[in-house]
């Protein structure tokens, strides 16, 4: 048996991983999530703002990371919509435009009473600007030096939400969802930390250890990977139970099923690999 495993074709492992992800996804397996203190800090940062506060939503990711980050972006957007916040969307990634579109579609379709036809007065899409941290440095000091128009080409002085906005130090909260550079770290270094802008982030699992040192002084809280998104969704559902019937509000929770089975498979593979290793060592072939 061990000899067969020793020469196991890796395509069997690929098949096992495929099934580990596909079966729970198809079956719609979900598990209860207990919200951690860090996620509750994010939830409270949005929840405790007075209704109709101003929130910047910086979505710095692309389709490659959408599987991990879109549930966070949607949860942030949904939570802000429930609080009727005014939202300023922007991105530092060229591929971020369509990611913003998904969030603005959510606003218009799921919360039409607050946002349908309210472009410019309840939300605005500033779109992409090149310059990475250079853009951040400008928008925190002088927004209109970096963005003179929104994504539709309308001058910011003609948009009610941006007309009197000098810079984003004037907003009540900065939410960033990021897949890497430029992203959360740059927002903290050049935006939130020097100017004390309350900031919450959602990031990939790989980025989470890099961002941990900034909590709680420079960052109010962080959603790390799909687990963070699932916990945040659970926190929102606990506060707004009517969302329990909305499958779109549980995208992160739904993705924890495949994650659980994939993690268990990985542990099984690591254990099996080590059994083979020690057996080989005993045989003197390792």
């Amino acid at each position, binding site marked *: 048996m061990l000899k067969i495993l020793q020469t196991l074709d*890796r395509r069997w*492992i690929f098949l096992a991983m495929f099934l580990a992800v596909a079966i729970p996804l198809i079956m719609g397996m979900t598990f209860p999530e207990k919200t951690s203190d860090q996620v509750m800090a994010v939830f409270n940062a949005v929840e405790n703002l007075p209704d109709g506060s101003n929130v910047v939503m910086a979505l710095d990711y692309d389709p*490659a990371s959408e599987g991990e980050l879109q549930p966070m972006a949607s949860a942030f957007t949904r939570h802000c919509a429930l609080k009727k916040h005014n939202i300023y969307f922007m991105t530092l990634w060229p591929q971020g435009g369509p990611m913003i579109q998904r969030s603005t579609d959510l606003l218009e379709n799921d919360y039409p009473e607050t946002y349908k036809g309210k472009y410019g007065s309840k939300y605005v899409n500033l779109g992409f600007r090149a310059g990475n941290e250079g853009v951040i440095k*400008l928008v925190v000091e002088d927004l209109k030096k970096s963005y003179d128009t929104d994504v539709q080409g309308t001058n910011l002085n003609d948009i009610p939400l941006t007309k009197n906005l000098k810079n984003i130090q004037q907003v009540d909260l900065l939410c960033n969802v990021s897949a890497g550079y430029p992203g959360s770290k740059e927002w903290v270094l050049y935006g939130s930390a020097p100017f004390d802008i309350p900031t919450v982030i959602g990031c990939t699992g790989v980025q989470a250890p890099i961002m941990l040192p900034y909590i709680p002084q420079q960052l109010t809280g962080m959603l790390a990977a799909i687990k963070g998104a699932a916990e945040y969704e659970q926190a929102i559902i606990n506060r707004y139970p009517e969302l329990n019937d909305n499958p779109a509000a549980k995208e992160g929770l739904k993705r924890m099923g495949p994650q659980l089975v*994939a993690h268990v498979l990985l542990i099984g593979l*690591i254990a099996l*690999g080590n059994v083979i290793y020690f057996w080989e060592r005993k045989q003197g072939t390792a």
Partner: protein
Amino acid sequence: MKRTIPLFISAVTGFVLIGTAFIPQFVDWGNDAMAWFNLLAAFAFILGGGNLLKMQLQKISAQQPGWGYAAVTLIAFFITLYVGLAKVGVNPSVKFPEFAWSGEFQEEGSAFWWLFEYIFYPLSATMFALLAFYISSAAFRAFRAKNTEATILLLIAVIVLLGRTYAGVWLTGWLPNEPIIGSSGITYSDFHLPHLSQIIMDDFTTPGMRAITIGIALGVASTSLKVLLGVDRSYLGSDQEA
């Protein structure tokens, strides 16, 4: 001269930006410098495109192995560039209906949107998703307890992998919140896998990352000073004057 002017621009811009943190009068200058930087960053896309063209054309003309892929890259590049610049399938914006090109190039239903949604998006997501397969294969073949360090790493990986899912709750959630006999204040529930996972993140990962971050910051500060003072000129390319 060819090197002196860039050195001068770097030094002045760098010191102005440092000054913005301490001298309020420098803030406007700093903002102007950043506006220029952002403009240059936009032009870098053109340089990037030019470089891509050069590299792929070289591959094709030399008939290097895999030159067909270079041809596909170029065809995709030109098609995307054309539909984006020409705004193929984009309707004029509602605000400026008299201008045919006033619509947004990524507008839903446009050719660029179609390319993004149905080609770039699935390809990009698929490439990233393939990682799961390679990680599982690597976990089976390479993650071995060969020495003490590797064994510790392996144990921590197992705790975090389980602790970050419901498996951790399921496996250890039954541990009672009662003190372990003979211990001072340690309870059985302290060994919940999610709790252990959190301890690893809070008490080991965070201080470790703090130390690394501070080290990097000090390194960046000293390297930046060397660049601003003209000691390090490697960013200007070869030392030989053209």
